[in-house]
């Protein structure tokens, strides 16, 4: 039985430079394994150890995701092997295209009992990929998960919802979105780093898997994000009591303190 972890190799958008004409420059950013997915990999390691399952990482993206540094970074975190779909066509893939690609990878792998992934994409923060992938596979999906135990294809899960901590029981195969604080992702130790390069890393293209990417709309233009323009009124704070009084009357005048 295989436990699969879908991980992302991407840059943090905070490090991108957006020019006033909407050009987004990621050249000064360095891609990393998303912190959210590192947590999912750690959970996968615990489960693989407990069940004896194979732990396989999958990822989809442009050139960068198939580089040695990317695959080794993933393997160093405890995956037994990685399976990567790398293709220029995936450079700007959104949630739907990425999910379609990962589905093909999972079909290709076979014998998958559980898929784990972090709860957010590093670069879009949308938190929907796991559900789209579940829909394509026809498998149940649960998110905000803190704890998973497996017994064959029987899974016991604990997850947080607004009403509290919910205990669930499911039959696999299943997709699970793991919360960012479910477990603490271990820092890869020296032995893990040095042995990463010896573990298998399989790279395929979209053509190899027979994937045709779905359309995700046509981008007409991109602009820098501008929030509503703010007044930026500075209140003199030499005398805190006076500053407070001034702020209160300004807020009252603006109607912000109406009950």
């Amino acid at each position: 039985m295989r436990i699969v972890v879908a991980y992302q190799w991407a840059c943090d958008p905070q490090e991108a430079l957006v020019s006033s004409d909407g050009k987004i420059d990621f050249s000064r950013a360095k891609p990393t394994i998303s912190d959210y997915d590192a947590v999912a990999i750690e959970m996968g390691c615990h489960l693989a150890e407990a069940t004896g399952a194979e732990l396989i990482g999958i990822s989809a993206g442009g050139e960068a995701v198939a580089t040695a540094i990317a695959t080794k970074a993933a393997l160093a975190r405890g995956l037994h092997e990685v399976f990567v779909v790398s293709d220029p066509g995936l450079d700007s893939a959104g949630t739907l295209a990425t999910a379609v690609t990962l589905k093909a990878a999972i079909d290709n792998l076979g014998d998958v009992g559980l898929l784990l992934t972090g709860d957010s994409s590093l670069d879009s923060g949308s938190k929907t990929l796991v559900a789209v992938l579940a829909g394509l596979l026809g498998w149940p999906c649960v998110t905000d998960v803190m704890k998973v135990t497996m017994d064959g294809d029987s899974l016991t899960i604990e997850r947080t919802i607004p009403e509290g901590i919910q205990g669930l029981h499911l039959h696999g195969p299943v997709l699970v979105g793991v919360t960012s604080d479910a477990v603490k992702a271990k820092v890869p130790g020296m032995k893990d780093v040095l042995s990463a390069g010896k573990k298998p890393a399989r790279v395929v293209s979209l053509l190899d898997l027979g994937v045709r990417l779905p359309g995700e709309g046509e981008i007409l233009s991109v602009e820098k994000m501008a929030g509503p323009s703010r007044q930026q009124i500075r209140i003199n704070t030499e005398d805190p009591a006076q500053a407070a009084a001034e702020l209160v009357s300004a807020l009252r005048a603006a109607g912000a303190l109406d009950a």
Partner: protein
Amino acid sequence: MFGLTDEQELIRSSVREFSEAEVAPLAAEIDRDHRPPLETIPKLAELGLLGILIPEQYGGTEMDSVSYCVVIEELSRCCATTGVMVEAHSSLCTWPIVHFGTEEHKQRYLPDLASGVKMGAFGLTEPGAGSDAGALATTARRDGDEFVLNGQKVFITGGGYSEVFIVFARSTEAPGTKGISAFIVDRDTPGFTIGEGERKLGIRGSSTPPLMFSDVRIPATNLLGREGQGFEIAMATLDGGRTGIAAQAVGIAQGAFEAAIDYAQQRVQFGKPLAALQAIQWMIADMATSIDAGRLLVYQAADLEDRGIPHGIAAAQAKLFCGEMASAVAGKAIQIHGGNGYTEAYPVERAYRDAKITEIYEGTSEIQRLVIGRSFLR
């Protein structure tokens, strides 16, 4: 070599992640309290950072020298004390056992040193023998199947918590350095006492007590290498130590440099951030260039060592340059911080205090200059 391998880059990012999470939060406190971060030892061991120079068959992680330097730099970037804690244990204790120890020595000591169960230290320096190490006066008198040690050592890094000590003592009448032998001494040997750690200007968390030997009896089998080979062992050990300390210096400089950049970008005077001023831009440029130059000297020495090519001069150059560079960069970092940099609220004053020792220990800058100069003018 002009670039790090993938593994070395991953080692850097791992040790950086670890250092920022576990090492940096303690740095100011251990400096203020002059206390070694003993709680970090098991965490370092878990990551494999205490067995870097120990072969795998003895429980070590055995990495190449360049990787080792990356580790020391990254630890020191967050805390110079933690950096030297690992460097002294590795370069000054585990290394000589690996290179000069018998199989019995290796089996007995290396697994515990790799796992952090025991830490290691190096006892060469004496009150009357610093740069002039050959003038050491501690004696080791042969008595049947034992040696009896008498004398004292000073400024022994890690002495306060180490269990395994490489101690250099005069065991024969041969004059000068030829009579010196190296010994492995366990902490709890009767007659062996460890004093209070010195209160220092910098690396205040580093334990540096004196060691006193009063008729300390050790088995003759604890002789490391041959009788009379001690000075050679000490010098060979310090060659490797030079590169490690140079890496520590680079880490200290890097940490101070990053703090200076942050400050320059946030601090506003005369209506704009300091970063907009040419004077500051030039200081940052000089700092960046000298740090990169130092790092390359460290990698060069480490790379030569990895390829089995004599690296003594390269190591001396790396230590000479990086020690003085770290002091200069830390000083400029304080200057950029202005008055704020002079207070404990900002980390650069600690970097300034920590940097100075890298010009002194494991071979002063003056000794490095002698070594380098003489190599050209034989």
